[in-house]
């Protein structure tokens, strides 16, 4: 069974060690994503991230400082995170010049992810011309209207 994925990359003018800490350590993660993050950097241990009153399950999958970091989230309460019940987010870091090329992918899309994604739609105006998934379909978006 193949699910769609989102893939992105961005250059960061900071060392891989720093970027790794920002994408992985809860005290940094809550600065760029959830309102609060409560988990340990131990693969398999149950954790949580919260958005206001709402919270989601969060489990670290792989920790390789400063090369890669992966976690799963939105698996049902009480279930172990695994393929098919959660989203898998992977960060890969590669040194580039004085900085870091940061690659992100998210796979395993299921219904729950949309609510959260839509809630962040107001950040859209920060975006400048990056490619997005399905580049061959994207141009059609402008020519089509939903539900007309």
């Amino acid at each position, binding site marked *: 069974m*193949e699910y769609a994925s989102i893939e992105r990359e961005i*250059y960061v*003018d900071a060392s891989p060690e720093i970027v790794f800490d920002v994408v992985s350590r809860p005290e940094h993660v809550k600065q*760029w994503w959830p309102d609060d993050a409560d988990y340990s950097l131990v693969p398999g241990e149950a954790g949580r991230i919260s958005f206001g009153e709402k919270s989601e399950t969060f489990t670290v999958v792989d920790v390789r400082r400063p090369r890669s970091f992966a976690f799963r989230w939105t698996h049902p309460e009480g279930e172990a995170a695994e393929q098919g019940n959660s989203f898998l987010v992977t960060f890969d870091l590669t040194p580039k010049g004085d900085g870091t090329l940061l690659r992100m992918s998210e796979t395993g899309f*299921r219904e729950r992810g949309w609510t959260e994604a*839509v809630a962040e739609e107001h*950040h859209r105006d920060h975006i400048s011309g990056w490619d997005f998934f399905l580049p061959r379909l994207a141009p059609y978006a402008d020519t089509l209207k*939903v539900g007309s």
Partner: protein
Amino acid sequence: MTVDDDLWQAIGDPTRRRMLDLLLADGDGTATTLGHRLSVTRQGVAKHLVVLERAGLVRGATSGRERRYRVDDAQLARAVAQLSSVGAAWDARLQRIKRIAESLPPATS
């Protein structure tokens, strides 16, 4: 906004995305015409068409001995909009990651 796994699965496969491209370019197509253009067996194409039709991305209509398929514009637009909103959320997060990392002092440890 309701989304289902069917929609994601349908567009998660490269052959099915090529089929959508061809149907959009040609206006419509049958399992036979798509099979010729993709070097996929007619039977293989028929299976992919079932997946696309179940997701609502194509609509089939019987014409003579074959079913002709067209892309459902509204459903495709919906799929693209959903992908775009998830992508946009990550774009914003990555910009914040960049800003935070670039503002931290170099590690001393």
